[in-house]
């Protein structure tokens, strides 16, 4: 176990140096490799557990093999112009994975008596991971032009989104109070997915990079929460680094468009007409 934790420390150093190098044009490509090396070290270490079962190791290797082929081929084949939606897709599957890890942990802990902190971490990760997953799907569809890139609005949109958020809060309180209810977690999962869709629908295609950056930060936070839920330092460090740097990056991206983040996210909500394309309206 100590060896595994040491490997997470090395991985964390790789991630931090990688992000640093990614922030400068000269070293950016090297930074990506540095982070990848850190990731590889953490992954190899995570395979060493006491008493591994052969069946499970084989299952894991099959899943990793399929995932590697799908990820590598789609990242290689995609046209340069279609890269933003590819990033959205990769972000979405990461958010889904974070939610699934926490759901699995929940099924595991509800057998015993789960503590408030672990329930909160699970619930948080499920909500944020699902919002990120569903939001990324909409971002992908809009950029891929499988659906209209213009903001999609309807009357009472704010009210609907508000009700969704309130529903989520109520379910969180309920889950923390009673501890174990797979049904309530299921409902929470569905509402979170709907919120993810509803949240990104009214945002125009031109603003998608900012939204993807924000969803990227969301997934980071969801991963960190999963780390709290299953007690894994590697997830906490990796997820938090992305959550924090992604939040700052989102702000910098909307600043460089001369707009506030609130304007990017909510400009179309409430008023049906909103500028698509090069909107430098400042706010």
């Amino acid at each position, binding site marked *: 176990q100590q060896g595994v934790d040491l490997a997470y420390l090395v991985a*964390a150093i790789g991630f*931090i140096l990688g*992000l640093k190098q*990614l922030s400068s*044009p*000269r070293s*950016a*490509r*090297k930074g*990506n490799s540095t*982070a990848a090396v850190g*990731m590889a070290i953490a*992954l190899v270490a995570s395979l060493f*557990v006491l008493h591994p*079962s052969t069946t*499970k190791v084989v*299952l*894991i290797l*099959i*899943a*990793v093999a399929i*995932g590697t082929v799908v*990820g590598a081929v*789609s*990242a290689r084949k995609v046209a340069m112009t279609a*890269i933003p939606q590819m990033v959205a897709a*990769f972000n979405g*599957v*990461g958010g*889904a*994975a*974070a939610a*699934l*890890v926490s759901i*699995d*942990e929940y*099924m595991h802990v509800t057998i015993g008596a789960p503590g408030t902190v672990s329930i909160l971490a699970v619930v948080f990760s499920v909500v944020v991971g699902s919002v990120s997953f569903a939001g990324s799907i909409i971002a992908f569809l809009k950029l891929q032009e499988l659906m209209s890139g213009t903001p999609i609005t309807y009357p009472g949109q704010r009210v609907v989104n508000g009700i969704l958020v309130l529903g989520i809060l109520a379910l969180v309180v309920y889950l923390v109070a009673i501890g174990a209810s797979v049904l309530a977690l299921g409902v929470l999962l569905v509402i979170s997915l709907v919120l993810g869709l509803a949240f990104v629908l009214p945002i125009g295609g031109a603003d998608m*990079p900012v939204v993807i950056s924000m969803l990227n930060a969301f*997934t980071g936070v969801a*991963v*960190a929460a999963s*780390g709290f839920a*299953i*007690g894994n*330092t590697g*997830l*906490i*460090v*990796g*997820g938090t*680094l*992305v*959550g*924090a*740097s*992604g*939040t700052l*990056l989102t702000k*910098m991206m909307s600043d*460089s468009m001369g707009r506030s983040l609130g304007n990017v996210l909510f400009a179309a909500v409430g008023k049906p007409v909103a500028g698509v394309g090069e909107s430098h309206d400042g706010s």
Partner: protein
Amino acid sequence: MSNELIGYLTTFVLAAFVGFEVISKVPTVLHTPLMSGSNAIHGIILVGAIAIEMRAHGPLQLSVGFVAVLLATINVVGGFVVTDRMLEMFKPRPKASESGDTAP
């Protein structure tokens, strides 16, 4: 609060400050690659997916874990590969970078 939880909280808070600090000087041209690179980093959830699959009981947990490992792998591999493609135009050169010519 257990010692373990305090340890996790400490890690979390320090990582949050480092995350803010480490990218604070990124030029606009690198915003998208940086986003994509950090997108790959949250693929560390694969470590968690492997962990839950290793200790899964019963077919339901095994399937959830399997899907989680699969999706997380796509996140990691796709994330790093697509970032590398974006950065091909930022090969280290004495002159400042700008897109246009991909081959030096």
